């Protein structure tokens, strides 16, 4: 029996301490999933806390044959999907805003190459911002696939879908993201042109 299985068994018998160990182990993946789904750190914190609370309350239903991480992320994904369906709200969190209200993330000044870090950060932000345009379930599938390396079968089990449905949702989401990416590239290109030197 590995450490995690022991903690789960102890938590199923009512040990808060063992469950806290599980919270410490899985807080980052659960929080990240909630953040990618909901977009706002505050909402993600609340959703992640609620996920662990639900997991604790329904621990007796957990099947030891399944991966605990998959079970936990499945709770988080369903909670976020329900929440998004209940209230359709503005998703994108703003770490900082410019005068026009456009959002951007401040680059880390301590990083060795602030410019490169800033470009990387912008790319990550672009993807994060584009995720909000996807269907809720498609978004959950994309997050599980690319952030957690879940197989299509694991995603299907977590989201209660068939493997072929997961595959078609992932393809649709990827095409949608590519379309949005292309639109942004075109827009950025047209914004750059007026300032280009006529000599070029």
């Amino acid at each position, binding site marked *: 029996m590995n450490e995690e299985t022991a903690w789960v068994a102890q938590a199923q018998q009512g040990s808060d301490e063992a469950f*806290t160990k599980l*919270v410490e182990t899985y807080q980052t993946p659960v929080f990240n999933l909630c953040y990618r789904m909901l977009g706002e750190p505050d909402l993600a914190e609340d959703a992640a806390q609620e996920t662990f609370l639900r997991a604790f309350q329904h621990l007796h239903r957990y099947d030891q044959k399944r991966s605990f991480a998959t079970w936990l992320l499945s709770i988080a994904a369903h909670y976020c999907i329900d929440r998004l369906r209940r209230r359709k709200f503005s998703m994108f969190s703003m770490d900082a805003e410019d005068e026009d209200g456009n959002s951007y993330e401040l680059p880390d000044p301590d990083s060795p190459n602030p410019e490169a870090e800033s470009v990387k950060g912008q790319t990550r932000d672009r993807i994060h911002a584009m995720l909000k345009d996807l269907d809720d379930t498609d978004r959950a599938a994309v997050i599980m696939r690319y952030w957690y390396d879940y197989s299509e079968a694991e995603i299907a089990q977590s989201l209660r879908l068939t493997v072929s449905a997961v595959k078609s949702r992932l393809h649709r989401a990827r095409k949608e993201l*590519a379309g949005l990416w292309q639109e942004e590239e075109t827009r950025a290109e047209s914004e750059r042109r007026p300032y280009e030197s006529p000599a070029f």
Partner: protein
Amino acid sequence: MNHQPFEEWLLNDKNLTAAEKRELDLHLRTCVHCTALSATGLALRSANVISPVPGFALRFQHRLAAQKIAERRRRFWGLMVLIVSGVGLFGWFAAPYLYAVITSPVEWITAIIGYMLFVATSVQALTQVITVLVHILPDFVPPYIWMVLISAMAGFGLLWTISIWRFSRAPQGVSA
């Protein structure tokens, strides 16, 4: 423009051979659609994992403790409402009898004897009615009606048992 098989390779994150990679690179130079697919794929794979603000587990412990207190409080008040309403209902029905007991013992003894006689004769009459029905009904009621009745009774029984179980079950970590 024909995107096949490049689009499939990109969407399925296929492991490419050196020759396929060269072919894809050539296609990407001329196809904006596949370039966007490739760029989003790269961006998704390089996306970072965000951690919560430090102290998450501690905040969870506080939330769990608050939840347990709220749950205990809810169960306590639920039980209180049940007890108070039960006692109130009992008092409402029992008040006239209690008053009679206190004011005139002869009357209530007579009333009890009368009530017991009424119950005994009612039971006797009911038994006779049921006996007659048991003899007569099978000839009138078709067998499928009996099956429906028995199934309905079994269903109600099951529903009742599940309701009792669900109501009496305490959630994980909350003692009664």
